[in-house]
């Protein structure tokens, strides 16, 4: 249809009994665009920092397979997406000026014909969430690296994932994914991210600890060069360096030589896992004796090293210990608590903390989680937590 003229606008003002003298001279005549608008565009409410990221030219990505709820990822954060309804009508108008913009633009045209690009009565809301990283470990465990001797590694790439593959499959930001890969000691072999099969990892670690012992090196000063020379004939040099990086802290001395300060807690913990995975449970004191004898000379074992890996049953006589890995438990909060309460009816805060710590959202405490998902009571003078609902 024909666009409105100044005369028509003025006539409307007279009918409305509005005094043009009290108004700014410019008027926007709003009409609906050719597509009508509904369904073509939607609104996404931006959390702090995201607007600046978009304006700086960075992208946001929506990730989720058909069976997953969509999340939005920036470069380093992950957000849940939820539709929020409003009882009002939201119209999006390009080129619509605010009073400030009109006042500063003296030459502004008297009539601004603005087309409404779209309208909606809802928008996407974002809420920062924990990145969904359990799937990352699951994918990499489909085909753990067992060493170069195993011929099968040359063949299939079906269960092998590049960085790009992981970015498209994991509901997390790139930085969160790369950080988690480092946490689980993954490495790139032939362009694919791999985790080491546990037995192979222990074999590599054993080479290193035996060498440290035979060379009588200090645990804080293990030389990279000599390790590669001595162990090179036995294993690929990349794997030797990888195991040193996983279980030690790298540093360079004044002469430019690379050394590793071995991580006592991590080594003792790995050796405990090796011992514990062979049976359902162990007599605690027997285990502690064997464990201390199995770790490198100069290292001391402590049950503190096993948080999130093993659980002590203080109620049994004699006391026992069994493997319980937090990474094997469900990722969802309610499912995690259900699983923990089905393993043990009542937990002390000290015992349960390592198994729920990773559920804490930004600024959320373990205490807040316990208040929400558990019920507390006193048992023999000690505060314990149990399920809020009956566990079948």
């Amino acid at each position, binding site marked *: 249809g024909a666009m409105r003229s100044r005369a028509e606008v003025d006539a409307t003002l007279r009918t409305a009994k509005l005094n043009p003298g009290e108004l700014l001279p410019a008027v926007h005549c*709003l009409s609906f665009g050719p597509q*009508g608008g509904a369904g073509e565009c939607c609104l*996404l409410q931006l959390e702090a920092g995201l607007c600046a*990221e978009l304006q700086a030219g960075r992208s946001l990505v929506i990730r989720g397979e058909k069976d997953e709820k969509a999340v939005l990822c920036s470069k380093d954060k992950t957000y849940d997406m939820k539709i929020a309804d409003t*009882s009002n009508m939201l119209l999006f*108008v390009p080129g619509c000026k605010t009073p400030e913009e009109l006042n500063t633009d003296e030459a502004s045209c008297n009539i601004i014909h603005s087309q409404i690009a779209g309208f909606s009565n809802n928008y996407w809301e974002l809420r920062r969430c924990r990145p969904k990283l359990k799937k990352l470990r699951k994918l990499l465990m489909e085909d753990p690296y067992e060493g170069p001797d195993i011929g099968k590694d040359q063949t299939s790439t079906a269960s092998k994932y590049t960085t790009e593959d992981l970015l498209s499959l994991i509901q997390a930001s790139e930085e969160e994914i790369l950080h988690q890969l480092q946490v689980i000691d993954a490495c790139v072999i032939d362009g694919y991210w791999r985790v080491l099969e546990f037995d192979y990892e222990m074999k590599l670690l054993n080479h290193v600890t035996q060498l440290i012992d035979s060379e009588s090196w200090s645990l804080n000063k293990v030389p990279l060069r000599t390790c590669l020379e001595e162990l090179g004939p036995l294993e690929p040099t990349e794997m030797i360096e990888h195991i040193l990086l996983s279980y030690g802290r790298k540093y360079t001395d004044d002469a430019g030589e690379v050394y590793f300060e071995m991580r006592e807690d991590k080594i003792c913990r790995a050796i405990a896992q090796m011992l514990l995975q062979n049976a359902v449970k162990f007599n605690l004191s027997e285990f502690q004796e064997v464990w201390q004898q199995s770790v490198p000379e100069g290292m001391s074992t402590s049950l503190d090293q096993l948080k999130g890996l093993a659980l002590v049953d203080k109620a049994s006589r004699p006391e026992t210990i069994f493997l319980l890995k937090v990474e094997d438990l469900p990722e969802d909060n309610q499912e995690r608590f259900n699983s923990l309460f089905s393993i043990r009816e009542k937990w002390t805060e000290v015992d349960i903390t390592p198994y729920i710590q990773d559920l804490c959202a930004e600024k959320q405490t373990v205490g807040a989680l316990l208040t929400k998902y558990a019920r507390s009571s006193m048992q023999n003078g000690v505060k314990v937590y149990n399920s809020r609902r009956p566990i079948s």
Partner: protein
Amino acid sequence: TTRLPGSAGAGSLEQWVLVELQGEVEPRGGGALPGSLLGDLHYTREGIPVLIVGHHILYGKVVQLEKPFAVLMKQAADPAGTHYTVTALIKTKLLFKTRPKPIITNVPKKV
């Protein structure tokens, strides 16, 4: 996966404005919405938005949004799934919450 690119190429993202109205928008006389007129938007010299829609006057206010919006536009569907692009940012809204004042066109004559 859907990538929402930020401001691609030269120039920054367009800034649009949100107009928030109560109730639903219906075309006049039962016609189609596309192409039809909504109304005239004026501002008073104090910066108050005034919207004349049909026989109603709406007074509103300019609100700087605490959380800006990104306008996502759907691209043509392809086998990989639905794709959206960020078309514009919205940092300001014109909120019309007041009850519309009807425009009285016939004043009864005194007898």
